[in-house]
């Protein structure tokens, strides 16, 4: 067992994957010489060389498009788009090419590619450097989307993503990079599509992912003081997501809150809520309540952004609403 930072766990996963498989290559803006804008790819150029770890020009469309072609021709590319906000520039490659190649070519091609997308706010980076757009990608058949919330999962999900024969988007919350946590020995293994129970409880289920995991746990602590025992489920994987785990939890708690940093309207929570309102209807004793950001761009001023991002108080209030 060792204590490492979230960003270091990702670095370790990339390094281990590249050692295990020479077809794994990394490219993106400033990932090589500079080690990435957040230091996540630090040291990998020195360890694996300039052929396998490459800096690209500022060309998001070509970066992801090249990942598609490389994956179709025998490599396992792991590319970075510096901020999830910039994924807009590579949407054709993701949506019309990567997501569809396996299907529309009749299963002839596997696309073992990974696209790393740092998302999230809380660092006063403003409207174009703070967004959480994972719902867009989870909506595209053919893409997989994961979002680790713990140090162990940061390692395990990256390894699983690289080993996956399908295109996997790994969403990393920027505010988690410095978070310290345990990286177990032996190194953890995780299956894409499986959630984890972060806290067991009996009165309400809070489904969450990414940076909100800690916030949800804080809400659960507050609620425990009021005699409300909340269960917190960390999805870890958004596409596919662990419907079974959520249903099983609902069968015990009968109340559901979904919390994410992304805008509430049309977000990942909307899909989970709709699905549970359907197959979980008989288990529900109250309305399904979502907690997400308001329908506005991420504001810059600190006081605005602090108000904008969901916090433990709002999650706790949502749980109380389901119990009212």
């Amino acid at each position, binding site marked *: 067992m060792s204590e490492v930072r979230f960003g270091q766990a990702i670095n370790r996963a990339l390094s281990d994957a590249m050692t295990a498989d020479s*077809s794994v*290559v990394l490219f993106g803006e400033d990932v090589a010489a500079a080690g990435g804008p957040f230091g996540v790819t630090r040291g990998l150029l020195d360890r694996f060389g300039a*052929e*396998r770890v*490459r800096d*690209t*020009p500022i*060309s998001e*469309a*070509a970066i*992801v*498009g*090249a*990942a*598609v*072609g*490389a*994956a*179709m*021709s*025998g*490599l396992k*590319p792991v590319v970075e788009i510096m901020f999830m906000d910039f994924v807009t520039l590579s949407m*054709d*490659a993701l949506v*019309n*090419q990567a997501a569809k*190649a*396996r*299907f*529309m*070519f*009749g*299963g*002839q*091609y*596997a696309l073992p590619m990974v696209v790393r997308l740092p998302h999230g706010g809380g660092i006063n980076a403003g409207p174009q450097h703070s967004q959480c757009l994972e719902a867009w990608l989870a909506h595209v*058949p*053919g893409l*997989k989307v994961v979002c680790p919330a713990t140090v162990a999962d940061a390692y395990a999900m990256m390894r699983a993503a690289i080993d*996956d*024969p*399908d295109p996997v988007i790994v969403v990393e919350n920027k505010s988690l990079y410095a978070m310290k946590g345990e990286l177990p020995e032996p190194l953890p293994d995780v299956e894409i*599509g499986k959630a984890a129970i972060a806290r067991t409880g009996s009165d309400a289920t809070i489904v969450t992912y990414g940076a909100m995991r800690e916030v949800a746990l804080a809400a659960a602590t507050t609620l425990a003081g009021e005699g409300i025992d909340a269960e917190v489920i960390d999805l870890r994987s958004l*596409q*596919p*997501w662990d*419907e079974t785990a959520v249903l099983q939890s609902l069968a015990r708690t009968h109340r559901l809150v979904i919390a994410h940093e992304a805008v509430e309207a049309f977000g990942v929570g909307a*899909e989970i809520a709709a*699905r549970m309102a359907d197959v979980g209807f008989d288990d529900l004793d109250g309305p399904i309540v979502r907690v997400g950001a308001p329908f506005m761009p991420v504001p810059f001023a600190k006081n605005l952004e602090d108000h904008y991002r969901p916090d433990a108080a709002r999650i706790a209030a949502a749980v109380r609403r389901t119990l009212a």
Partner: protein
Amino acid sequence: MVRFLSDVTEELRLAVPDHTSDLALLRSMKVIREAELRLAKLFADGEVPGFIHLSVGQEGVAAGVCSALGPSDTLASNHRGHGHALAKGLDLERFFLEIMAKAEGMCKGRGGSMHVADAKVGMLGANGIVGAGLPIAVGSALAHQVKRNGAVAAVFFGDGALAEGVMHESFNLAAIWRLPVLFVCENNGWSEFSPTSRQLSADPCALALSHRIAARSVDGNDAVAVSEVARELVAEIRSGGGPRFLECRTTRVRGHFEGDPQKYRDADDALRADESDPIGRLEKRLAAGGVSATDIEAAGREAIARVDAAVERARAGTDPDFDTALRDVYAQTEAAR
């Protein structure tokens, strides 16, 4: 040592003044022509769903460039990709089965005309998004470079694609990484319904040269010339010379898509198309070189026979199964929600 058919053919051509490679070009073009004309008829008769974009008149480019590529070389194409696919070696039967929406098509009826692909012959797929094949080919070339397999990636795109931003990104990236990629621009003078003269501020070769990619321009309707230049460029790429650009000036005989009334074109345009027909020109060249009329006509007869057989096979194909398709969105058997 890996020997490609193109290498062997080249040696034969140089060693003995015979017409083996030129006849091979003719046969390749004839198959494309007969397949495309047949598809035009099948489409008009309602046997082909959706949209098809035929490459009649542009066969010299497909056959010529693909004669320079070997089985390990990869190829990305565009929406007008039938000729490219067939010249790269796609099976004619599975080609027709796919375009006629049958389960036995090489894409299991899931893609159709704009997505014909064959991993076994390195065909990375025709593509419905203009310009999308360029970064894909760049990535494929990256794989060849990292794996050091001596292979080359090629991509066909039209003059219309020269206006797409991703083209510049692809040229730039290929140039700075010296990737083994051949960019082939089929300049037929039309971007859908608009003439290139109104769409492009720059000359195609100038765009490549501005990224320091060596560029050549060739009469795309002279299949032998295309083949010669393509071979030279592929050899340069294969020996580590970095990317190359080849403009093939050609003629789009039919509309942007089948059913396009082409009201935007001059009647003169059609006349010029006949004169520039790459097949007619190669036949004349072969005849002048002493090849018998029998041998020349055989190419056409064989093509028609092969196309006939492929169409009959395709008509006997079966409808694809929905659940099978649904389970094939991901490599794992569990379909995600």
